[in-house]
């Protein structure tokens, strides 16, 4: 992914428990699919 490309997701969040759940899940997705996380 080039540096000028926008990230595919915007997450509106704070460090709340529910905010963390989404952050953690995104991290897990990236750990599996890398930057190639792609819409299907």
């Amino acid at each position, binding site marked *: 992914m080039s540096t000028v490309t926008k990230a595919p997701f915007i997450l*509106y969040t*704070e460090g709340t428990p529910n905010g*963390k759940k989404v*952050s953690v899940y995104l991290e897990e997705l*990236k750990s599996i*699919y890398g930057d190639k996380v792609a819409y299907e």
Partner: protein
Amino acid sequence: MSLNKFAEPIPGNVTSIVSVEHISIRTNKQKESWYINTLNPNGRIPVLVDRNRPTTTGAEGFAVFETAAILLYLSQHYDPEHKLWFDVAKQPGDYSEMLQWIFFAVRFPFSLRADIGLTTFFSTVVSAPCKANVCKTNNSYDWQSLTSSPANHFNKFAPEDIPYAKKRQ
């Protein structure tokens, strides 16, 4: 990886796939009209916007609110190999169990740390005032002592007497 890493809203190395917009809930930014109109009519966080799906709603992409809905949305569209979730057609039992635990986790007041929270809840909220007031007898709780204890959580949320709770004992 330390769990403390997640004290931050998002780990740094995920920034290549997600832009984080910090919504200061202390200043009620999530209740502002732009947020309610384009992201979440309920005025809550978190909200995920998927730029891969342009919309005409004013957001930069398809907006998803509610934590469980976000997790399932990400799974449906971004985990085609079912590494992190289950295939509803091929693994219906596992899929159902997954939903059960997702709903439990997002509805439970202690959220992410549900297992730790449960323990903490009973040790600090229920047991502690009971020890102080010697209100636990015959493995049942004296709700009068519980609810009248000034340090007690229940006193704040259910300050009135609860006769049916005592009756049940």
